[in-house]
């Protein structure tokens, strides 16, 4: 049975701690842009914790919302790429093939979630910071679009391991860096084709929503709305 990787983001568990953000930087060799570039709006965070204010003092509230690539089934970023650099893998991921990318940036415009990031310069690390780079993830060069891959290198590694041991992948056997580091278990990753996996169980929750679902992009990431104390009390 082929896999369909998906994620559930429980907005009721998310504390906005941003451990996922740093985990992603460490795992995926995402360079730090530096103050000048960040000021120009070129900071790269494959996963970001969006936060929105509601109300005013003293009734002010904040809503946290981790946003990463939604790995849409009907992804607007895919058809627009003239070179097939952005395409749909058999396992339901929106892959970005760096070496095929010529940098038209069309996909980034088409993405309604703004989760595609462009290499405006060749990334650089002051030595010896480069020793921390993960050899399992390629280093994107200038003019190339990049994005969340659901840590495809981890998926590949797990699949190769399973193949070596002649077995199927177990649910929760591996996780993307973000889900792996999430203390409050707000991010749950797994195989949506496996009805018993935790992710598909949670996806069926009645709190489930899709981000910008009205655009018909059919994301493989599901958000679980915040609950309230009253709901819980009333059962």
């Amino acid at each position, binding site marked *: 049975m082929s896999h369909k990787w998906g994620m559930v983001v429980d907005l009721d568990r998310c504390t906005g701690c941003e451990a996922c953000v740093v985990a992603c930087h460490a795992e995926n060799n995402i360079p730090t842009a530096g103050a000048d*570039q960040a000021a120009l709006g070129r900071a790269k965070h494959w996963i970001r914790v969006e936060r929105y204010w509601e109300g005013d003092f003293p009734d002010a509230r904040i809503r946290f919302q981790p946003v990463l690539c939604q790995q849409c089934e009907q992804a607007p970023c895919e058809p627009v790429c*003239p*070179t097939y650099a952005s395409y749909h893998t058999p396992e339901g991921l929106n892959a970005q093939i760096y070496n095929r*990318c010529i940098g038209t940036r069309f996909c980034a415009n088409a993405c309604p979630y703004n989760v595609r990031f462009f290499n405006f*310069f060749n990334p650089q690390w002051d030595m010896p910071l480069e020793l921390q780079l993960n050899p399992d993830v390629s280093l994107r060069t*200038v*003019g190339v679009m990049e994005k969340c891959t659901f840590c495809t290198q981890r998926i590949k590694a797990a699949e190769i391991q399973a193949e070596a041991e002649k077995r199927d992948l177990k649910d929760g056997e591996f996780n993307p860096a973000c889900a792996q580091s999430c203390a409050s278990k707000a991010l749950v990753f797994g195989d949506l084709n496996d009805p018993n996996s935790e992710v598909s169980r949670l996806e069926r929750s009645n709190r489930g929503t899709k981000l*910008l679902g009205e655009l018909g992009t059919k994301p493989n990431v599901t958000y679980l709305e915040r609950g309230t104390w009253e709901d819980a009390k009333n059962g």
Partner: protein
Amino acid sequence: MQRTAEQIEQDLLRPVFHTSKKYWVAVAFATSLFFAGVAAFCYQVYAGIGVWGINSPVFWAFDITNFVFWIGISHAGTLISAILRLTNATWRRPVTRCAEAITVFSVLIGALIPLCHIGRPWLAFWMIPYPSERRIWPNFRSPLAWDFFAIATYLTGSTIFLLLPTIPDFAAIRDTATGLRKKIYRVLALGWQGTPRQWQRLETAMHIMAIAIVPVAVSVHTIVSWDFAMTPVPMWHSTIFGPYFVAGAIFSGIAALILTMAVLRKVLRLEEYLRRIHFENLGKLLLTMSLLWFYFTFAERLTTWYGNAPPEMVVFWDSIRKNFAPLFWIMVFCNFLIPVPILGIKRLRTITGTAIASCTVVVGMWLERFLIIVPSLEHKFLPYSWGTYRPTWVEDTLMAASFGFMALLYLLFSKFVPMISVWEMKVGLQPHGGVPVATAEGEHHGLVLEGPLPTDVVE
């Protein structure tokens, strides 16, 4: 007082044979602009495209604005001259060539810009469908791939359309020139002898091209508009974009044409040939397009406002009330409020008048493209990821260079080819019509000038 064939030939071929100091200064200026652009591009390739002001989420800005702008300009020529030829509007004769020239050059520039704007220009050839051991073809679902083919077709088509009617003039130059020049033009003239048979062939070819080029032109700008309309971006994802862009393109095209003519008229001293009537007629056309443009803009904005979709309204208000309001209203003035009275009132529809109107339109149409692209990208669906855009000197330089390049190409062209079709003007002289070598065939080929020249031309 009518001019004789000799005078016409003499007047129109003068630029080819005599070069003024002013001309070289102009060339120098244009060239320096162009090479400034080349330098800026080299710097961009070396340092990374980050030296532009583009950022996340505004990934397109000046680059694509200029691209759409130049492709738009290109609709002047071909479309106009093709339609005028087909409808056999006799006043077209002095106009067509400089129109067609504009087309070819602006398409050329428009096609260059995407090559400069992509992140890895050295891989642009992947847009070309060629068999490789990788067994990967371009993605034919991508509007950019469509662009590539449409523009390639348009470029070849309009080039042919420009060169066909110059053949007899090349021949004319060949006959008068001497030395190296003669050799060159002998080649260019493709052995034109002006036999009835050749005239007939030329005629047929021009007819075919005239008919073929119109749908191509329309499709090109429709496809350009689809670069935007095909993506779920607020205010981009609209069905009106196709016709809207085509209309806008013709609009800006005519304006550019009028401007060029006004300049040529002074520089090449063609007052005798580019007369008020030409500007007046083109002015009328411009007026129509201005009204049409306003209609489209109004329709587009009204539907958005009525639809009241939250993400679209953000862009809507941002462009007409907030950050981009100044640009937006300048655009409305330039494209509508200023040109319409000038072109509408006959007394103002003078050569200067139309030239001024055209100026504002060219500016306005550039702003229109900018206002379509940037505000939408700045405000996509998730407020958290909104951004802003400021151009850098590199982008400014590249833009200036695109104009410089246009001027340069035009200047060089005017050096090698008479900017007004000599033989067509001669045709205009025939009292009972017919081609220079009097032949009955002429009548069947619409080459004949029905009746005498319009009075205001003759006066």
